[in-house]
């Protein structure tokens, strides 16, 4: 099996499911949401981030790069030779493979925290479910055997069989729903949403525990029409879901685009104010879904 690339393992993660968790961010995602705050998680191949403020101008990277990528970023293969010689940490390779046993050993270090808090491991990304299935299944089997509960944070845009394979190991699915109108979905994320919504219905029909998470992006999907359509869809099609979260947009990831040498196209996005978020909760309540939480 091929090891997927891992961007980061976030310990003391307290907003990705119940309790204290460790969240594994896998690299690569079938969507390319324009508001994405983890742009380094979109491609499946390794990349190099450049933190300009750390650079001391020592020039070690220019000698190390054999691809001419420092002159032309497009020729970067993500080999990381520049990062290896960069002592200041200005050049950082993102996306490292890791064997299942090594990853499990690392994740198991926080077992006492998971047990105390009712937490566990959250597989996220990028898109966890879009990674090598043999690897994912082995990982989940190991974790479950070690007594660690697994959450799968998914955009839902994967073959249904992938989700069904992971279902027996998954404690809770954190399932993103962004837009109900497929054309609008395609406009903002690059793909239509039919498969996503079908997968959500499928998982519900198989008895999965699901938290629906709706990133609320001012200027993209925060209009009343979409919120009302979403609420109506959830009540009609997947009444068994556990909770609904509204996750307001934040611009924390915008700086990463520059580090990747990309342009951020999300200047027009904004965080709906608290009154607007409260109004969305009311819309959900009117559509028969109460107890919507704001923030993770």
């Amino acid at each position, binding site marked *: 099996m091929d090891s997927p690339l891992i961007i980061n393992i*976030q310990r*003391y993660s307290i907003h990705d499911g119940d309790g204290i968790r460790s969240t594994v961010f896998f690299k690569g995602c079938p969507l390319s949401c324009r508001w994405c705050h983890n742009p380094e998680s979109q491609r499946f191949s390794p990349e190099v981030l450049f933190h300009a403020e750390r650079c001391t101008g020592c020039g070690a990277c220019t000698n190390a790069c054999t691809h001419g990528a420092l002159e032309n970023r497009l020729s970067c293969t993500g080999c990381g030779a520049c990062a290896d010689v960069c002592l200041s940490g200005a050049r950082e390779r993102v996306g490292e493979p890791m064997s299942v046993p090594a990853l499990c050993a690392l994740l198991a270090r926080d077992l*006492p925290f998971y047990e*105390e808090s009712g937490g566990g491991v959250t597989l996220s990304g990028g898109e966890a479910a879009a990674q090598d299935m043999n690897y994912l299944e082995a990982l989940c089997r190991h974790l479950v055997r070690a007594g660690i509960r697994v959450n799968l944070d998914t955009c839902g845009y994967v073959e249904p069989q992938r989700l069904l394979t992971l279902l027996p190991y998954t404690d809770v699915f954190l399932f993103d729903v962004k837009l109900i109108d497929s054309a609008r979905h395609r406009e903002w994320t690059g793909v239509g949403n039919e498969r996503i919504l079908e997968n959500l219905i499928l998982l519900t029909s198989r008895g999965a525990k699901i938290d629906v998470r709706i990133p609320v992006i001012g200027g993209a999907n925060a209009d009343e029409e979409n919120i009302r359509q979403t609420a109506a869809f959830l009540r009609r099609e997947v009444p068994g879901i556990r909770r609904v979260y509204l996750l307001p947009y934040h611009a924390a990831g915008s700086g990463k685009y520059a580090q990747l040498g990309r342009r951020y196209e999300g200047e027009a996005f904004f965080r709906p104010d608290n009154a607007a978020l409260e109004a969305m909760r009311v819309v959900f309540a009117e559509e028969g879904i109460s107890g919507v939480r704001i923030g993770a």
Partner: protein
Amino acid sequence: MAEQHGMNERIRRLRQQSMDAVPHIYMERAKLETEAYQKYEGSVSVPEMRALAFYHFMENKTIRIEPGELIVGEKGDAPQGAPTFPELCCHTLEDMHVMDERDLISFHVTEEDLALQRDVIIPYWENRCIRRRILSAMTPEWKDCYESGIFTEFMEQRGPGHTVGSEKIYLKGFLDYQAEIKEAIDNLDRLHDPHSLDKAAQLRAMSICCDAIICLGSRYAALADEMAAAETDTVRQQELRAIAENCRVVPAHKPQTFWQALQMYWFVHLGVTTELNPWDAYSPGRLDQHLNPFYQRDTASGILDETKALELLECLWVKFNNQPAPPKVGITLKESGTYTDFANINTGGITPMGEDGVNDVSYLILDCMDDMKLLQPSSNVQISRKTPQRFLERACEISRKGWGQPAFYNTEAILQELLNAGKSIEDARRGGTSGCVETGAFGNEAYILTGYFNLPKILEITLHNGVDPRTGKQLGLPLGCARDFATYDELFDAYKKQVSHFIDIKVAGSNTIEQIYAEYMPAPFLSIITNDCIKKGLDYNAGGARYNTSYLQGVGIGTITDSLAAIKYNVYDHRRFTMDALMDALEHNFENNDVIYSLVRNKTPKYGNDDDYADDIMKEVFDFYQRTVTGRANTRGGMWRINMLPTTCHVYFGEVMLASPNGRLAHKPVSEGISPEKGADIHGPTAVVRSCAKMDHLRTGGTLLNQKFTPGVVAGETGLHQMANLIRTYFSLDGHHIQFNVIDRQTLIEAQKHPDEYRDLIVRVAGYSDHFRNLSKALQDEIIERTEQSFA
């Protein structure tokens, strides 16, 4: 930004008075002490001399009752008056000027004070004081080490007595104690006991001290009566009559009510902290458990309700805040640069029978600390497996407000630490922590802190063939220069030999100092309220307590671990640079070598990240230090043990050091407590906790972990629950203590720029909280730089 603190107008006024008063020197104690010594010295035994001086003070000190006060008694003449103790440390006129003029931790001194010091105090005490005796008894090598910052010495200008007294003060009065003392005198075996003469003198001294504290109580009763007679406000008149009645009951008799129990504690506190200056960490200990029977009885009989009880607690809180720590100078000021008095309250925990100790008063104390937001008393909680989640989360709610209290102590760890040190299970369950985090068997133990020990400095000396590169003095053993160590094991072996060498010097010095205190500075009042001193006829300072421990506090475990890891990883394992190149970089404070600096800063395993490479080194250093100290005999019939805490000493210990191999620059603070070196921990709080838990806390007498959060991480229900879970998990892994600074970096930077606009800003320093504006620039910087755990 002035917030209102205090439940009603009375408390707000008293609190404001306490905050506004200017810390100042209170000379009356020194004057009375001198008078008594001049009158009695040479004609009575040393303990009786001390007791008579104590009596003279209690009989003659100026007393007053502030408007609105319900708990009476002040250590000085008024709020923020700080007595001096010339018998311990006879301040020079220059010391007095420094105290008056220094920017931080200053004490106002008047011309009159200076004249008295010059004409009366100095001529009598200059050559008699303990500090003089101690310094002349120390060896040249001890003095060299002391001056070079290898270790500090707590008792150089402060008396022992950082402790918690017996809970028996709630069950009997000082007349009862006096009867017990008389019986002990009557029972002395003058026929067979070769020490019966000394014991008789000691016991008579204790009896005089009973008279002294009773005398103070009577004087307050008379004053309150007098004030009541002149009072026109009928409500206040009734209060004054009640105060007078309270002072007729306590301290002579056992307290009958909740109010009297608080007044009893306060009289005892005044007694202990004016007899000697135990710097002044005499503490109420398990206050909720002591007060609860009174609270239940008084509320059942209808003479007390929750509101009134809270008001009385808040009055007591103001009293603590009125007492600044005794004025310190020199190295002792550096190791403990604070007005804070370290009066530590442990709320929660378990009962002597092993049941959950949380009761109604526990919640009242939490409300009180939340409401009062005062540095003193240092209000902390003990959390056991049996502690209700509601109590823990209420404590977290207060803690996340960001001013450092309460800190959290692990009851099960304390219990095992005490059992491991030979205490009975019941004594252990009555125990807790005082000072910052120091474990003690409350009421039964003299657990005396002797000084801080600079673990990273010893590596510096090891790398220089035993020479301190700052002073050029040969302090350590000549075991070879840095380049002579062919392997890491050889280097580490040399480090261990040097550590042993310095521990020997420190312990020899402290054992001598213990004897000086036992002989010249007994504490007969403290001995009354410490179990077994009466029974043994022995002073607290001479081994009279049931248990007698001497603690040595290791400092800088994060810095030493990362420094050794940097050498092992880079010089020996991966040969990225040579030892010579490293030594050259250190000598030049890394200014000549960015490559080495970057490698050790950014590309080397560090403690605090749950990385076994570094953490294994931490364990080796800790284990060696722990083994080398623990079990040595002290001179009071007890043993040496360790704890791991710094107060403010990590700043001083950094000042005396050049750059260290982990990239810490010259003269910057070393790591504090068992926290990682600042900026070293990059994997979040669970990784920090896991690293810290690899230390064997149960073999210590306390460790200190400072966890800094930005407010966002602990916001909301989720933040609160997970903070509680983090604490529970650390404690399940045997962690001893954890405290939180919840503050964002920007606020601290602003506060540093505009101290006057942030007069209220309190931060957790190390085992205690302090006003940010009162900290030195170096310490402020250090707190700003401590890793900010920002995980949103």
